[in-house]
């Protein structure tokens, strides 16, 4: 892959058969639960946030009932009761493990198709349930269908795949793919009629404020943005918008493997130029990634509940090695010191000596804002004091929890208001939590 530079904007025209895939797991948290509990399938199911506050995942059936993402769970209590909606506490350990299995499937598949580039460099884990792939294939649609079937077979997770020349377009395509029964949407070349169908806010990377500003200046659709004068855009908006403009024109500006952030997670990783074997070097690289990602947390005013570290050798090694381990924090944090310390513990667990590592990275998942942090009533006195300032909505939650067993945990136990969080068993990471089958 070669890049030319224009100012600080790296652009590159993809090779003839070079494609970007965006693989997106459908209703990921719910899907993970459904793999191990068939009784949850084809039913309205939601997964809640930490301490069962908000709805963070919905099955198709729950979505059809009009239950919105991010809504406060107690506000929808009546709907839950009326329609038999099953509400589950989150089990991020399980989701994290299932995520690493899905990513491993993708790594396996890229390895099978390409020889000249290390598969590790062709996969970018964007969040716990999304990844970008960079492939060279004369029939990317066949590849994507095969990959989708493989992921479903191997892990039980269904994904939607968008295929296009750039990441931004692949993201749009994956949204379309979600509503198709075959789950794959291929955009061999981007037409104006295609772009006209999307508003600016539908585009990945264009937030509400940017979309409003664009709209006020006459740019309302993806087509409008693609056709806008780039110098003028550069003057009025950030370089990210200019990159998006190029990407809509099928000029790739976002190489696989940059620091990525989104509301769901923050990831920081790098491939090593020369392979690394020494623990101390890995620890140093990891600490830098963690510091960088933690800075992003603080800039965004976010805290993380969960830190994951992953480590991989080259796929071409005789015995390729890929491990990922996560740690759930008792209290969400944004402290570099705390996160570097925890990251070190995870590295200790997954590091094996005498291997030559190609890539190391860290992911922060289950992020919350400062407001979310104040809802952690039962964590410590300090947060309880912060709670004194919290609004009456919080009091209502307490009352509700005290009144009735609203949520049906997957274990079928009713929940008292003092003990929130009855997550599903950690089927894949805890021996005591194995799936039990009556035979």
């Amino acid at each position, binding site marked *: 892959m070669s890049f030319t530079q224009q100012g600080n904007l790296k652009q590159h025209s993809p090779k003839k058969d070079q494609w970007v895939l965006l693989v997106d797991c459908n209703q990921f948290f719910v899907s993970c639960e459904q793999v191990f509990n*068939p*009784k949850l*399938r084809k039913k309205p199911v939601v997964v809640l946030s930490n301490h069962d506050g908000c709805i963070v995942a919905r099955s198709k059936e729950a979505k059809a009932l009009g239950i919105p993402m991010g809504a406060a769970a107690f506000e929808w209590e009546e709907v839950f009761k009326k329609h038999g909606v099953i509400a589950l506490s989150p089990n991020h350990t399980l989701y994290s493990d299932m995520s*690493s*299995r*899905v990513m*491993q*499937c993708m790594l*396996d598949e890229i390895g099978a198709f390409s020889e000249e580039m290390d598969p590790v460099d062709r996969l970018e884990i964007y969040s716990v349930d999304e990844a970008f792939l960079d492939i060279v294939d004369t029939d990317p649609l066949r590849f994507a269908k095969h990959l989708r079937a493989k992921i479903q*077979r*191997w*892990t*039980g997770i269904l994904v939607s795949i968008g295929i296009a020349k750039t990441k931004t377009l692949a993201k749009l395509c994956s949204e379309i793919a979600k509503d198709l029964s075959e789950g794959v949407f291929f955009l061999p070349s981007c037409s104006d009629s295609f772009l006209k169908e999307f508003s600016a806010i539908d585009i990945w990377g264009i937030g509400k404020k940017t979309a409003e500003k664009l709209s006020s200046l006459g740019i309302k659709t993806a087509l409008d943005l693609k056709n806008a004068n780039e110098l003028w855009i550069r003057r009025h908006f950030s370089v990210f918008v200019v990159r998006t403009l190029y990407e809509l024109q099928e000029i790739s500006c976002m190489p696989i493997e940059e620091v990525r952030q989104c509301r769901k997670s923050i990831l920081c990783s790098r491939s090593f130029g020369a392979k690394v074997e020494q623990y101390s070097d890995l620890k140093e690289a990891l600490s830098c990634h963690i510091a960088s990602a933690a800075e992003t947390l603080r800039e965004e005013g976010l805290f993380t509940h969960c830190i994951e570290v992953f480590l991989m050798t080259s796929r071409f090694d005789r015995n390729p090695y890929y491990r990922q381990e996560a740690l759930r924090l008792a209290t969400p944090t944004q402290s570099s010191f705390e996160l570097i310390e925890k990251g070190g513990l995870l590295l200790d667990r997954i590091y094996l000596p*005498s291997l030559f590592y190609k890539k190391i990275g860290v992911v922060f998942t289950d992020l919350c804002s400062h407001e979310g942090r104040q809802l952690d009533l039962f964590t410590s006195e300090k947060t309880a004091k912060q709670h004194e300032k919290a609004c009456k909505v919080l009091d209502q939650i307490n009352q509700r929890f005290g009144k009735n067993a609203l949520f049906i945990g997957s274990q079928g136990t009713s929940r008292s208001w003092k003990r929130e969080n009855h997550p599903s068993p950690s*089927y*894949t990471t805890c*021996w005591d939590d*194995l*799936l*039990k*089958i*009556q*035979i």
Partner: protein
Amino acid sequence: MRPVEMIPIGSHSEIKTPMAEALVAAGFPSPAEDYIEYRLDLNELLIDHPASTFFVKVQGQSMQEANIHSGDILIVDRSIEAKDGKIVIAVVGGEFTVKRLRIQGNRTILLPENPAYPTLEIRAGMELEIWGVVTYVIHPAR
């Protein structure tokens, strides 16, 4: 008589004495150094595809003649094709079960391995999902 010149032995002077052949900086030299291998690892032996391999625990007697007993842990690989004769984890009517899969022409049958238990034939309209193929059974020596 000339006085003996006393030459102090300072910290910079060296007294060479023969020593045993050098200790290598990294540790004791070993003829086996070039052949370092890892201890035997059960994961390597038992798990071909970590991404698609899961463990389940079973309770019940219906598979005793296949040497699967109550309390055993099964290693299950979802990537293996479920062929006739394989022991599988299946989901029938929303419930998990472990049975031997028989495919005879267009008939699909789930067989227990215990004469006291009924055979289950999958008929039209019944929902069957093969969740994975059992590769190993783990139980203590009895």
